[in-house]
């Protein structure tokens, strides 16, 4: 009797030990994988927040030795980074407004209205979203040159909006699809026009989707490098993505300033992308996958 109870206890302990081992293994794997993934970001932080005398030695210490914050002031006083950020902000804001206005129209037509050519319109958007930007760069550059539209912030915003608009429409379509058709029917029975229904019913119900479109459009233009570099060659209009790429680490710019610049530029997109990831994924896969 006693021996039997003892056996059961040993068996239970064995199972417990195995479960503990599995759990430990799981946590260890998660920790190692996360470390590898996040290490480059960690290294950016480390290199930003300590004086470069610690980081400019080999091998560099893997843990921070001293905290240091003067690099931000130095960065802003030694480089026109405030102007770059302001230019980026202007381009991004214009792109965002244009995209929001147009994507509401497109998504409403694609999601809530039925008309011949609707599928064709969806495909048209899908294809324009998939072409490499560089393919259109040369003809567009020649066109802009002829029309004297180079070196102008609104002209660049026009291009950025054209590239991101299809994704924005797909995001909003997915959101509009969730508006129950009965609600729309009811409003139309009550004498509302379609546009009235869009304004009074669909849009208020789709606030998070609109926010997602704003975020996607804004930060697409904020991050965009290729067109900004070619279309805004004059220093006056240079946005931060292009400006940062002109900084040379160590040789001209101290490492802690160089990495601080990267950090300043990344904070906003990282925050907003992480919040809106679900919508962005559904837009990028044209609604095939809801993240």
């Amino acid at each position: 009797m006693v021996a039997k109870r003892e056996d059961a206890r040993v068996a239970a302990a064995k199972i417990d030990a195995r479960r503990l081992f599995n759990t430990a293994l799981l946590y260890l794997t998660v920790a190692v994988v996360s470390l590898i993934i996040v290490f480059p970001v960690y290294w950016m932080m480390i290199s930003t927040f300590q004086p470069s005398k610690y980081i400019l030695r080999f091998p560099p210490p893997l843990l921070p030795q001293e905290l240091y914050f003067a690099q931000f002031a130095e960065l802003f006083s030694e480089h026109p980074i405030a102007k770059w950020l302001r230019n980026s902000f202007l381009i991004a804001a214009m792109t965002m407004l244009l995209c929001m206005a147009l994507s509401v129209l497109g998504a409403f037509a694609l999601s809530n209205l039925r008309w011949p050519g609707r599928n064709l319109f969806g495909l048209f958007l899908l294809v324009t979203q998939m072409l490499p930007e560089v393919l259109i760069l040369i003809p567009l550059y020649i066109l802009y040159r002829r029309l004297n539209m180079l070196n102008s912030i609104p002209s660049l915003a026009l291009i950025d909006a054209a590239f991101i608009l299809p994704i924005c429409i797909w995001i909003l379509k997915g959101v509009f699809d969730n508006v129950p058709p009965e609600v729309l029917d009811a409003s139309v029975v009550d004498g509302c026009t379609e546009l009235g229904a869009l304004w009074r019913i669909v849009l208020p119900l789709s606030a998070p989707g609109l926010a997602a479109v704003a975020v996607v459009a804004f930060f697409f233009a904020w991050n965009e490098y290729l067109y900004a570099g070619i279309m805004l060659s004059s220093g006056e209009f240079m946005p931060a993505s292009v400006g940062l790429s002109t900084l040379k680490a160590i040789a001209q710019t101290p490492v802690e300033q160089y990495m601080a610049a990267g950090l300043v530029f990344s904070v906003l997109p990282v925050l907003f992308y992480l919040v809106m990831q679900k919508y962005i994924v559904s837009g990028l896969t044209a609604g095939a996958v809801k993240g």
Partner: protein
Amino acid sequence: MSEHVEADALTGPPRGVKARPLLRRRYLLPFALVLPIVIYEGLLIVYPIVQGIFGSFTRIELASSAATTWVGWDNYERMFSDPAFWKVIRVTLLFTGLVIVVALTVGLLTALLFNRPFRFRPFARGMLMMPWAIPEVPVVMIFIWILSPQFGVVNILARMLPGVTKNPQWLQVPELAMGWMVLISSWKAFPFYSLVILAALQAIPQELYESARVDGANRLQLFWNITFPGIGSTLELLVVLAAIFSFKQFTIIFLMTGGGPSGTTETIVIRIFNTAFRFYDYSYATALGVAGFVVSLAVALVFIMMQVRRAEDSA
């Protein structure tokens, strides 16, 4: 009556319901809504493409005011007989293929890992998405610094390998440069694939696993017979998307190697850029652009066909 028709027009998307014949006037609104978008995308995307196709048959002189002249197939003859073009194609295929394999494998493995329940999982998932959320230019800055031959932190790892006594010139050796371009592009891209695969994993009904376990299936069998079929169509879709995204990759390669050393990381998008804006050979660059356009259109069509098939399956 008219209210009835309006209601009908608003009930889309159609879910297997036959559309009642609508009044012609009903189509006015959708066309009016869509027209500005079609014109806008037409002017800034379609028109330049048509111009590009046209331009690839001409000699374009931007610097002088000389008129563009029609040269027929000259640019294409030059392209197909140019060994450098075929090298660019090989590099593009190698880069795209490797990024698809690496990014999707890592994406799948992390998705399987992060699909298991553990504490701090939301936090860990946020970390996982980090590389995807950081803009490309700062990514380039981080890796330029990490790969610095003098002080780069990655050299600590390299020095642990037997036989490595000096810090390698990471971006000067062809194989290493290509390897890093693939790794960095995959690091940037895999969280997106991981997130999509996670969503597919969570859509697999748990009861399937439970009943299979009752029948005595082991883990490997569970994976091959339930998990893999469950996410199969998502993986297919992601292969095509990954092909599109990595084919488009410009900023990371351009800013880190510019296509070098000696063209070993020069994919077609880099080549197009260099031809136009370094060598000012716009006509030849547009011909290369048309070649790239044909390839990406083909891949996009594959994606669309898969989409249509999925839509039919779910309908």
